[in-house]
C-alpha cells in the first residue's frame, strides 16, 4: 500500500532533516521545498496528501503560498498545516483565515503534531494512524 505523502516546505535545512526523520519513522513518505516558488512546483509535481508549511520563506512567504494553493483548483483541496516560529497572537487567525487547516508554533509537540496529521489525513478514522480502508 502506498504511504501518504507529506510535502515539507521550510528554508531551514535542519528543520527539514529532523521533520523528515520523524515523519518517515511514522510511516509517511516525504518531499521537500525550500521557498515559495519551489513549494508550488513541488505541490504540482508530487500532489502530496498534506503540506507542512513554514511562513518565513524566501521567494514568496507562506501567506503567498497559501493564497496560490487556494487559487489553484487542483491544489486547493490539499490540507495545509502551518508550522512556524512566528507569534500566534499575530498570525494564528490570519493563517487559519488564509485556508490552513491547523497552526502549530515551533517547536511543536511531536505527539500533537502527529495527531493532527493523522486526523487531517484520515478524518473518518481519527487517531488510529492507519490508512483508510478503501
Amino acid at each position, binding site marked *: 500500500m502506498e504511504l501518504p505523502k507529506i510535502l515539507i516546505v521550510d528554508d*531551514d535545512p*535542519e*528543520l527539514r532533516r*529532523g*521533520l523528515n*526523520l*520523524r515523519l518517515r*519513522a511514522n510511516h509517511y513518505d516525504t518531499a521537500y521545498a525550500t521557498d515559495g516558488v519551489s513549494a508550488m512546483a513541488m505541490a504540482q509535481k508530487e500532489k502530496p496528501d498534506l503540506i507542512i508549511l513554514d511562513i*518565513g520563506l524566501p521567494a514568496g512567504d507562506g501567506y503567498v503560498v497559501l493564497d496560490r494553493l*487556494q487559487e489553484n483548483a487542483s491544489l*486547493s483541496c490539499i*490540507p495545509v498545516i502551518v508550522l512556524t*516560529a*512566528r*507569534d500566534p*497572537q*499575530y498570525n*494564528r*487567525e490570519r493563517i*487559519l*483565515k488564509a*485556508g*490552513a*487547516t*491547523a*497552526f502549530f*508554533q*515551533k*517547536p511543536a509537540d*511531536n505527539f*500533537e503534531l502527529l*495527531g*493532527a496529521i*493523522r*486526523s487531517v489525513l484520515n*478524518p473518518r478514522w*481519527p*487517531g488510529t494512524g492507519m490508512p483508510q480502508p478503501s
Partner: protein
Amino acid sequence: MMDRNTTGHVLLIEDNPGDADLIRLRLVEASSDLEVSCVNRLSSGIESLAQKTPSVVLLDLNLPDSHGADTYRSLLKKAPTVPIVVLSGLEDELLATKAVHQGVQDYLVKGKFDSKQLARAIHYAIERQALLISLDMSRKQQLQFKDEFLSHVSHELRTPLTSIHQFVTILLDGLAGNIPAEQREHLGTVLGSTNQLLAMIDDLLEATRAESGKLRVELRCISIGDTVIQAVTMLRAAANEKQIRLEMTVDNGLPLVSADPERVLQILLNLIDNSLKFTPAGGSVAVNACLSPQDPTYVCISVTDTGRGVSPESKHLIFERLYQDPNSSSNSRKGLGLGLYIVQELVRLHGGRIWVESQPGHGSVFSFTLPLFSLSKLLAPIVNSQGKWPDPLVLITIEGTPRLQPGLPRRANLRLQCMDILRSCVSPDKDIVLPALTGEDGSEIFMVVATADERATDILLKRITGQFQRSAELQSRIEIRVSAHHLRPPQPNSDVPALAQLEQQLAEVINRVSIPVRGQQPSSPNSEFDLILSKLADAPVRNSN
C-alpha cells in the same frame, strides 16, 4: 505673551448671563483675535465640542443640566483631550484638587482673576494638556515597540531552540538508534531546560501584552471542577517526582463560571507549579474550589502549600513584575519572575481578584475568584427600565459538529474562529453573543440573542450560514446547522420580571435544541447545557432592577 498665546477658540459653558458677559470681557481684554462661543447647558457644550474642537473649555460647574464634579467628569469622558479650566463661584480647595487629579487643567474662582491671569491660566492649561497627550502617545509607542521587538526576538530565539528540541526528542524517542539509560537521563535534562527557555520566552511576551492591554480572554461558560482536575492531572507526575502530595477538593454542585478555560488552566498550572517549587519533599499542595464565602456570586479557587511561605513584606511585591524571592535557593528561581504577574493580570481580565495569605515557615495560600456564569447579567442590557425589550428578539443557535478527533489542541482555535465569524456577522451594540457551549456529544453550540423582525432574521441567518460556508477550511472541520427561534415579548402583567421571563424562554429553547442532538436523557447533568438548565431551574426569581 497674551497676543501670541491666547489666539484660538474658547468654548465657554456658563448659564449665568452676567458671569458669561464678564468672562467674555476679560477674554477680549486679554486678546483681540480670540474666538469665543458661549453656551448655557452642558448638553449644548458637548454638542458644540462634537462639531468643532476648541483650544480650551471654560466650564462652570453648576449648570441647569449638571452639577458639581459630575459636570467636568461628563465633559472629560466626551472630550478627554481638550483642556478644561473650571470657573467656579465656590472657593473649595478640596474640590479643586480633586478636579485637577481627575484631569481638569485648572480651577479658577469667579471674580478672583483679572484678564491677565485668565489668559495665563488658559495658556498653561493648553500647554500642559499638549504635554500630557504627547507623553501618553510616547508611552503607547514605547509599549508598541516593546511588543513588536519581543515578538521578533522570540521568533529568532525559537528557531535554534526548535532545532535543539527536534533533535533531542529524536534521540530520546530512539529514532536514531537505542541509547543507554545514563545518556537518556542527560538528554531528559536538556529537554527540560529547552522547555524552560521556551516558557520564559512565552512569559516575556505575555507580560508585555498584559502591560499594553493586549491579553485576550475568551469567556465561556465552564465547570471549574473540570479545569482543576485537568491542571492537577497535568502536574501529578511533577509532584510525585518531588514526593509532594497533590490533592484537590471541588465542592459538589458548584455553579458554572464565566471564564476562558485555557486561561484558567494557565492560571492554575502557574499557581500549582509555583507551590510545588517552594514546597519541600514530604509536603503537600492542595487545590480547593468552593463558592466564595465573601461573595456568593463568585467561585473561589485556592492553592494551599506547606512550603516556606511568604514574608509579610513580600506579600505586596509578589505579584509585581520580575519579583524574585531573595531568600529562595537558585534551584527554585527557574523563571523570570513574571508568572504571578501574568496570573494576576489574567484573573483581573476575568473580573476576579487574587491574593496570598501566609504564615512564614508554615506555607502559603494563593486564592483567586472567578465570577459565576449568569444569563441574567448577560441579558440585562436588553431589558429596559420599563421591564420590556423594545424590539422583537430571536435566539439564533449555531450547532457545529466537529469532523475531527476531539481533544486536539486545534479545538480551541476552532472555537475562537467560529466566535470570530459569528461576531463579524452580528451588530455589537444590539445583539448579544452568548458564551459557546460544548454539548455532551462533543458538538459546539454558539448562540446569539439578536434584535430582529422576520425579514431581518432571514438576512441574519443567511449571513451567518454564508460566512461559515465561505471558509473552506472551517467547512472541512465542522458541520454546522443554523436555526432561529423567536422569543415572545414579555407578558406585561406577570409576577415574573421581564428578565426572568426572557431567561426562561431561552432555557426552553436551549433545552429543545440541545437534547435531540444525541438523544441523551436530559436528566444526566453532564453537558454544560444541562448544567445551565439545572442552575436556571434552581435559581430564585430575580428582580429586574
